[in-house]
Each structure stands twice: as structure tokens, then as C-alpha cells.
């Protein structure tokens, strides 16, 4: 088991490095933070001297070629030797050394600090949404399959199709406005529609967590929608297949109680496709936060990366992409382990 986990983690390293290279090349070649900074300075109406441009380039490491910049971003080393910090960097770059690179927002802004402040806020939302979508998808998928072609099945199927076709941002806006109207109508403040927690709230991590729960509800519902739609369809299809299989018929023929057949024979096998799909849903949620956090005014990683995109802050974008890549890969690992729990034919030795 432990050997299996270690082997899987080692296999993930090249995937992570590959995706970081790809993301870096795409982001680096599509945006030009130096030109953007110079443009913003020119808005002041004055000519920007060459020395200023050179200083900006040097601060953002844009006086180097792209491969050099990637290597620098990864290792923080100017020479092609890892852990040798003799190079002429400002000591603010090199992911392997815990430095996330300079921000275009100014030298006082540390990308690493900004990210770590917001990481738990966003992870909370993403995990809540993924777990909610998996849970509800299993429930409705199983109900649909057990009562195949009933009114319940038809309405759940229709809701599934509708959810699949619903743009998340539109649904989120509708949800938010409906909550605001309800708050007004009932003269209460039950529904929290803005921010990730009470403003200026300070306390122990537990108190902060409890304070944030009501704020979590609406964004979670909105973010869970897309993942739910696809997974409930898979769950229904796989449950139907299992219910029509010979071994379930045999179990029934032996006189096993219906509840036991469902729980022990049918559901366990029918959950395997969900385990495959869950990481995809997690990846979708990691991208979806950029929309949801913007609509609900959250100051998390999604909002942060949106600002980074607007300001052409390449190293901040890379930080978000790397973090969400790691989260998705952890999700893949968990789903691999779940296979072992669900499928008795798989043994991790």
C-alpha cells in the first residue's frame, strides 16, 4: 500500500513538471508584463526612459530568455545547477526554494504570502463543492436507477440535463439575487451573499471556520452544479448495469435481503465510475472558482488569479496553476486508492 502510494507520487512528478512547462510556455508567450507596465507608466503622459524599462525587465527577470526564466522560476538558480544560489537573482524566485517569483504589483508584494493566505479559503470551497456534487450525484443516480422509468427518474433525468446545460455563472448570479431578495423580503440576513467570512473577523482557526460556514452555502451550491450533472448520469447508468447483472440476480435468488443486495452487491460496484470521474470534477471546480469567487466577492485564489490575469501578472498565474495542478493530482491519487476499496479484484501490494 505505502509502496503503491510512493510509486504513484513519483509517477506524478513528471506529469507535474510537464504541465508546469506547458503552462509556463503558454502564459509566458501570450502575455508581456513588461509592455503592460510600461504602458501603464505611459498613461501618466510622460515618456518612459530606457533605464526604467531595463529596471522593470530586470526585476521581472524578463532580461532573460524564456527557457532560462522557466529554470529560474523552478529552481531559483541562474546556473543550471540546482541549490546553487550564487546567481544574480533578487532571491524572490525559485519554487523549489519556496519563492514564487516577483509580482508585477510591486516589489513589496510577495506572491507566496498572497497565495498561502488565500489557499485554505479556496480549498474549503472546492472540497465542499466536490463532496456535495459527488454525494448528491450518488443519491439521485441510485434513486433514478432503482426506480427506472418512474416519474422520479424522469424528473431527476431532466434536472440532470438542465444542470448540464446551465452556465455556472448565470446560475450563481440567479442564486445570489434570489438570496438577496429573500433576505429583503423576510427582513433577515440568513443568506450570506458576499465575501468568504464576516469582515474583519479574527479568532482561532476553528472560530474562523465556523464563522465562514454560512458564507460557504450558496457558492458551494453554484460550484457543485456542473460536476453533479455529469456524475449523476454516470451513476444512473452504472447502477442500472449492475442491477441487471447476473450476480445481483443470483444474490436475489439466494434470498439475500433487498437492502443488503443494494448496499453490498450493487452500490459498491456501481461507485467505481464515480471514482474515475471525481478527479475530473475536482479539476473543473478548481477552474470554476475563478467565476464563483468573482460573483460572490470572495478574496480567494480564484479572485486572486483573475486579478493576475487582468494585470498580466505571470508568476502569480503560474503559482495558481501549479497549486491547482497539485490539488488535482492528489485527487487522482485518492481516486486510485478508492478503486482498491471499491473493487475487490484490485490489491495494492
Amino acid at each position, binding site marked *: 500500500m505505502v509502496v503503491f502510494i510512493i510509486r504513484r507520487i513519483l509517477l506524478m512528478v*513528471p*506529469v*507535474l513538471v*510537464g*504541465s508546469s512547462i*506547458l*503552462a509556463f510556455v*503558454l*502564459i509566458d508567450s*501570450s*502575455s*508581456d508584463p513588461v509592455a503592460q507596465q510600461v504602458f501603464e507608466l505611459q498613461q501618466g503622459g510622460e515618456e518612459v526612459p530606457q533605464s526604467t524599462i531595463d529596471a522593470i525587465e530586470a526585476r521581472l527577470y524578463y532580461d532573460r530568455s524564456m527557457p532560462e526564466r522557466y529554470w529560474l522560476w523552478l529552481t531559483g538558480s541562474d546556473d543550471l545547477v540546482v541549490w546553487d544560489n550564487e546567481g544574480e537573482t533578487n532571491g524572490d524566485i525559485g519554487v523549489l526554494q519556496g519563492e514564487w517569483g516577483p509580482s508585477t504589483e510591486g516589489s513589496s508584494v510577495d506572491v507566496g504570502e498572497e497565495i498561502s493566505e488565500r489557499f485554505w479559503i479556496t480549498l474549503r470551497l472546492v472540497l465542499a463543492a466536490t463532496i456535495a456534487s459527488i454525494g448528491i450525484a450518488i443519491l439521485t443516480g441510485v434513486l433514478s436507477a432503482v426506480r427506472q*422509468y418512474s416519474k422520479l427518474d424522469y424528473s431527476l433525468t431532466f434536472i440532470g*440535463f*438542465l444542470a*448540464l*446545460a*446551465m*452556465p*455556472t*455563472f*448565470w446560475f450563481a*448570479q*440567479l442564486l*445570489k*439575487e*434570489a438570496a*438577496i*431578495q429573500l433576505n429583503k423580503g423576510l427582513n433577515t440576513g440568513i443568506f450570506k451573499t458576499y465575501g468568504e467570512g464576516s469582515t474583519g473577523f479574527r479568532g482561532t482557526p476553528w472560530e474562523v471556520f465556523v464563522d465562514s460556514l454560512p458564507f460557504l452555502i450558496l457558492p458551494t451550491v453554484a460550484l457543485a452544479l456542473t460536476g453533479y450533472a455529469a456524475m449523476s448520469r454516470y451513476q444512473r447508468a452504472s447502477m442500472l448495469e449492475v442491477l441487471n447483472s447476473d450476480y445481483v440476480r443470483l444474490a436475489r435468488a439466494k434470498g439475500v435481503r433487498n437492502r443488503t443486495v443494494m448496499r453490498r452487491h450493487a452500490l459498491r460496484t456501481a461507485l467505481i465510475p464515480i471514482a474515475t470521474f471525481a478527479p*475530473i470534477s475536482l*479539476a473543473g471546480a*478548481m*477552474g*470554476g472558482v*475563478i*467565476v464563483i469567487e*468573482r*460573483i460572490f466577492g470572495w478574496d480567494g485564489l480564484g479572485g486572486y*488569479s*483573475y486579478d493576475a*490575469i*487582468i494585470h*498580466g501578472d505571470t508568476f502569480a*498565474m503560474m503559482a*495558481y*496553476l501549479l497549486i*491547482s*495542478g497539485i490539488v*488535482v*493530482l492528489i485527487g487522482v491519487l485518492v481516486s486510485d486508492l478508492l478503486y482498491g476499496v471499491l473493487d475487490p479484484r484490485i490489491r495494492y501490494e
Partner: protein
Amino acid sequence: MSDTTVNRFENEAITTTERSQWALITRRFFRHRMAVVSLVLFVLIVLFAFVGPWVWTWDHRLHPDQLPSTSTGPSLAHPFGTDASGRDMLGAMMKATQQSLLVALVVAVGSTFLGAVVGAVAGYFRGAVDSILMRVVDVLFVIPFLVIAAAIAGSIDGGSKWYHMAFILAAFGWLSTARAVRAEVLSLREKEFIEAARAVGGSSGHIVFKHLIPNTMSVIIVSATLQIAFAILSETTLSFLGLGIQPPDTSLGLLIQDAGSAAAFNDEWYLFYIPGVMVILIALTINFVGDGLRDAMDPRQTMVRR
């Protein structure tokens, strides 16, 4: 026995002619009522978007000299109302639907083609080619699609046009198609007709394009319909964020952004609901069409539904 019964028997005898694959598929498809209704609706939406602008008086632009800059609700003169700057919403909806559909259709063609070729090549050659291509898929999968697409679309100089959006979405949208086609090809390549093609000296290119891809058509067409839904939702999301199609051009996402969420429950409700419902309608109908096609093309499917 009456004459009519005899006639019926004779008629039935005549109809037992050979039916082509496509005739069978269309017959099965037209039995799926939801899919047929959806197909009709989808065609109507396409006509609305591409023929509508030729028929309707107003376009998506502002006409300050002819239209007062106040928002008015739906009326005979403006069936979808006008927005605060006096823009006719029916004209704007036509143009916006057109832009969003253009992106979706180009993405469907582009990414389906790319995915089909990559999937077929990976599945056919296996070995090193397969592992390299599938690692590329894994690597792309780890990067959150929406963020990277937003980053690229947001940094296009002068704002992105519909073809920029189509290109970006197609470049990231082919992963699922490639996976599905590869799985299908992996089983197909062991079949006798592929072996026969190889035995008579068919080149790899010939086998992939003339034998493997045509035989995975059902998978490819179904995933193309899913691509349309995926593209329309992604494009509207990016445009909503302000990172997609830019004004003065318009898109369904941009119209929803313009309406603002407050519009959902006030007098300007039509600004919020009409574009939103249009996105849902497009994605919903195309999903049903895909569902119907999948049922129709499944060789295990019998002629009788249920």
C-alpha cells in the same frame, strides 16, 4: 380475408429491401422524440442567429439618433425590449447568438478532428507514440482549463474575436474526444478487417484515415455534439468574465454581464433571462441530439425503444 389485408402483406414484402446503415440510424433517431424536437429547436436557433439579422430592422449596435437611450420592456416594436443605452435586444440577441454559435461550431469541428486523429494514432500505433500522446493528455488535464484559457484570451491585443476564442477552446477541448476515440480504436485494431487491410499492403495512414476513423464515427459524432455544449458554456463564461469576446462585438456571455445580476428581479428582468435561457436552450438541445444519436448509432440497440 379482405383485399386490404392482402395489400398490406404485399406491401410488407416489398419493404424488406436492404437498408443502409444511415437509413437505419436516421430511422432510429427519429423514434427518439426528445432528440427530434431538440434538433428542430436547434435548427431554429441557428436560423434565428444567421438569417435573423438579415430580416430584423435593428442590429446589436447603438443608434442614438433613432432610439432613445432608456430601457423599455418587451413590446411589439422591440420584442426583447431595449437596454439602458437604447440598444434593441432582439438585434443584439441575434448577433450574440451568432457569435457564440460560430465559436461553438468551429470548436466542435476543430477539437473533434484533433481529438479523433490523436486518439486514432495513439490507439493504432500503441507503444511509444501512445504513451507520449497520452502523457500530453494527462499533462493538459492537470492544468485548469478555464484559467489557462482565460489567461490566454485575456492577453490578446485589442481583445479577442470569435476566431481567437474558437482557436483557444479547440486547443484545450480535444482531450475527452481523444480518450474516447483511443479506447474504441484499441479494440478495433485487433479486428480482422484491419488485419486484412494490412495484409494487402495498406499503409498506416490509409488504415487510420480510411478504416479506423470511419468506424469510430459514432463515438466521434456524439463527442462533437458534447463539444458544442462545452464550447458554448466556456465561451459565455469567458466573455462574462470580460476575458472573451470584447465590445463593440457581442456574445451571450457579454449580454448577461451587461445585464448585471440585479436585473434578475427588477424591471429589466428580460435583459438577464433571455440570454441566459438562450445559452441553456442551445446546450440542452444539443445534448439531447447527442443522446439521440448515441442511441441510434449503438449497434447493440434494437429497433424498439424500451
